[in-house]
């Protein structure tokens, strides 16, 4: 399978990253390490200035930022909610016609497209165009060599015309003929497949049902034992697991590794992690990188239950170990993650967290309260409102890994058992990003924000997700429950007293601002803005344009495509336009942020660009409200 070899070669290529890049990655990490101690200074004013003319923004550093922003839940160094960006601040904080004339001597001023990769600014638009349609995983287009070629390339007028066409080309369009099918199908995606009858008479029908699912996840042991499947029970899927196992071991036997393959409209991606093989099967048009990130996250969930050493011990003691037993009851957690990926989760796509928007002084008051009531046994403390972070308290030397937080949020807000319990919880868990060898202990208490909850009162188990406030306190001491319970009681009492609780509840009730509240009279319907330094993102409400599962999934598919186009290995573009039947969209990347904007199909490029610029200006004003910068550090 030649196309598989090509995927198979990917990690090798990753390993071949130029040394200078690796060095700067390490440097970056050290810089992060140090910057944890500091509250990042307020952002400097950013003159309109072309990135390419900024000597600090050398292609190398920009490539680095592209790489490091690739979602890697597992492998990335612990990132903090307080990290200052390791990269030089971008000077290119505005796009559109206004900033081009002085800095870009050549080519289409109406095009905000821009790329890096050429040292000659004169060539940038053409290389951008080329890259924007180059098959992104084609090894021939990989790495630096192509850049050399491009810079020698003298663009002809015809080429320019063609490339401006191509640039508007929408990768999503390939999906469009099937969109209706997907739309219908996704409504039933999460319906459970009933068990096989005793006489096996319904097996055929169930398999058909199983095959209609748009997305599957499987986890199996190296010896081929099924550990997890999102849909269908063991009996139903045993043949398929067998095939997957045969394929994987065939390649492993050949000293190669099967990374992925395509069959029809379905993409299969494999991830091998020690004694486990994880498989994602998707018809939703996600990229390999995105699917692999999802598999990494499932793997982290398994480590979170077992820890790495104990899982390895089980397999080294008995290679045929059935991991279902030690993992019993955690299916709901894996399902929660899997379904989040299928629905499309901005948080996973961006590998970032969302915060509750609060005034700076209010957030400061909450942070101060956290520090005041902190007890010595505390490692991390979080206040989480409806899946969004309100505040964090943490030791100076430890930051929180977004992948770990994602697991915690999934446990609290997707899986029902913790919040349905109606009490306080004491949960041993491993946070693999923090330390994959040992357990921490997590105290969780939920409250409803709907009624006036008295400190200590318990929330009704039936209340919905959006009104939930959780206090999460994490300790390394497994006997720390009562200490953390006391801290929680003190915290709630203080927050009630100083008015912060009312502020938090009001902010939760208010929900997300709509896009038109944020940037009035805009063509934009939705956007995602990720602050790379803070590892956080912000977005407006999905309403009114993206109501319901289907609309939301389509929006997320669009975002995923944009995300992939600016993150794929060979695409060094910094701005990407995309025109679909039902939307026009834009992705814009700088060392400081990633911005993805979507407008209605009628919107002009100019309107889209103007909207994007206004979002960036809004963020600049609101930065300390929409992001937690620093948090409470002790």
């Amino acid at each position: 399978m030649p196309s598989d070899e090509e995927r198979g070669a990917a990690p090798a290529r990753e390993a071949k990253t130029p040394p200078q890049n690796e060095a700067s990655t390490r440097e970056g990490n050290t810089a992060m390490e140090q910057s944890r101690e500091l509250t990042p200074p307020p952002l400097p004013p950013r003159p309109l200035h072309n990135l390419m003319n900024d000597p600090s923004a050398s292609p190398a550093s920009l490539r680095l930022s592209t790489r490091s922003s690739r979602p890697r839940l597992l492998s990335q160094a612990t990132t903090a909610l307080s990290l200052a960006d390791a990269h030089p601040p971008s000077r290119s904080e505005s796009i559109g016609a206004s900033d081009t004339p002085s800095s870009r001597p050549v080519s289409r001023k109406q095009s905000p497209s821009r790329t890096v990769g050429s040292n000659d600014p004169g060539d940038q638009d053409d290389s951008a165009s080329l890259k924007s349609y180059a098959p992104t995983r084609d090894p021939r287009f990989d790495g630096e060599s192509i850049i050399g070629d491009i810079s020698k390339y003298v663009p002809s007028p015809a080429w320019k015309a063609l490339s401006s066409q191509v640039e508007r080309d929408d990768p999503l369009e390939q999906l469009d003929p099937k969109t209706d099918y997907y739309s219908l199908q996704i409504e039933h995606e999460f319906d459970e497949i009933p068990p096989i009858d005793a006489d096996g008479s319904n097996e055929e029908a169930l398999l058909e049902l199983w095959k209609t699912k748009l997305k599957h996840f499987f986890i199996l042991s190296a010896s081929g034992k099924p550990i997890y499947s999102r849909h269908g029970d063991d009996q139903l899927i045993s043949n398929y697991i067998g095939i997957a196992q045969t394929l994987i071991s065939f390649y492993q036997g050949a000293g190669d590794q099967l990374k992925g393959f395509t069959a029809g409209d379905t993409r299969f991606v494999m991830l091998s992690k020690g004694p486990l093989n994880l498989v994602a099967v998707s018809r939703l048009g996600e990229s390999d990188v995105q699917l692999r990130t999802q598999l990494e996250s499932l793997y982290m969930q398994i480590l979170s239950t077992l820890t790495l050493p104990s899982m390895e011990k089980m397999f080294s003691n008995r290679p045929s170990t059935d991991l279902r037993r030690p993992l019993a009851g955690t299916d709901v957690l894996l399902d929660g993650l899997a379904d989040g990926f299928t629905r499309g989760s901005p948080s996973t796509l961006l590998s970032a967290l969302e915060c509750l928007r609060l005034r700076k002084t209010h957030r400061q008051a909450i942070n101060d309260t956290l520090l005041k009531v902190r007890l010595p046994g505390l490692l991390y403390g979080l206040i989480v409102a409806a899946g969004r972070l309100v505040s964090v308290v943490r030791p100076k030397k430890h930051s929180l890994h977004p992948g770990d937080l994602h697991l915690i949020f999934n446990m609290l807000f997707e899986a029902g058992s913790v919040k349905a319990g109606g009490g306080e919880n004491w949960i041993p868990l491993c946070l693999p990003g923090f330390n994959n060898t040992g357990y921490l202990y997590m105290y969780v208490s939920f409250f409803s924000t709907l009624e006036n909850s008295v400190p200590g009162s318990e929330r009704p188990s039936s209340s919905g997700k959006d009104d939930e406030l959780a206090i999460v306190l994490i300790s390394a001491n497994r006997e720390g429950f009562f200490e953390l319970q006391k801290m929680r009681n003190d915290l709630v009492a203080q927050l009630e007293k100083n008015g912060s609780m009312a502020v938090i509840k009001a902010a939760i009730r208010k929900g997300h601002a709509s896009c038109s509240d944020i940037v009035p009279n805009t063509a934009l319907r939705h956007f995602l803005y990720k602050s790379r330094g803070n590892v956080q993102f912000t977005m407006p409400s999905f309403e009114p344009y993206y109501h319901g599962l289907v609309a939301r999934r389509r929006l997320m598919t669009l975002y995923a495509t944009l995300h992939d186009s600016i993150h794929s290995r060979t695409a060094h573009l910094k701005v990407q336009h995309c025109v679909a039947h039902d939307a026009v969209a834009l992705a814009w990347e700088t060392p400081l942020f990633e911005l993805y904007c979507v407008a209605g199909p009628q919107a002009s490029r100019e309107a889209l660009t103007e909207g994007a610029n206004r979002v960036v200006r809004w963020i600049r004003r609101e930065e300390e409200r929409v992001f937690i910068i620093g948090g409470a550090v002790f």
Partner: protein
Amino acid sequence: MAARMQQGSRPGGARFAQFKLVLLGESAVGKSSLVLRFVKDQFDDYRESTIGAAFLTQTIALDDQTTVKFEIWDTAGQERYKSLAPMYYRNANCAVVVYDITQAASLDKAKAWVKELQRQANENIIIALAGNKADLVAEQPDKRAVTTADAEAYAREANLLFFETSAKTAENVKELFTAMAKKLPIEQASQRGMRSAAGRPGGVDLGLRQEPGQQTSGPGGCQC
């Protein structure tokens, strides 16, 4: 604190005592459901398995003079949490060991818990055996896998309180906890509480003390 007088909260000869209670038993027998019925008078047909342990409280009046507050640890029945159990039962005043009357193996598991409690827990611990999901056999008698007589005989022999319960219909749930409260040494507990409100006369004590020889595998072991 396992038990204490709530000073001044009740006039005259009123008594108030507080006890630590732990629920043990195989996964899916209905421990969380029993607690939720007792504490909130609710029931979910579909409940997810408990992760870790949940802590809840409930106060009941035994008569107009006597109030008992339970501090309840609802533990997770999954195997991997087994090594954490001693932390919850170590100083418990009472325990409810639950099995599912439609699953014979769950009674074996319950017996193992009783044995462990009698060996390792507080020597005065009061243990109740609860055969849960009685509603299922009320509908379909052939679903029953453990006869009342067998379970009763075992309970008598092992000196346990015994009830067949249903978290779904609430049958015998309140009765179970009330019977437990009545067997607890309320008088003693109150007096002890009066003598030394600051004392720590037993009760699940998750603080400080680390028992020797605790396992370090499973979630119980902190290796960080």
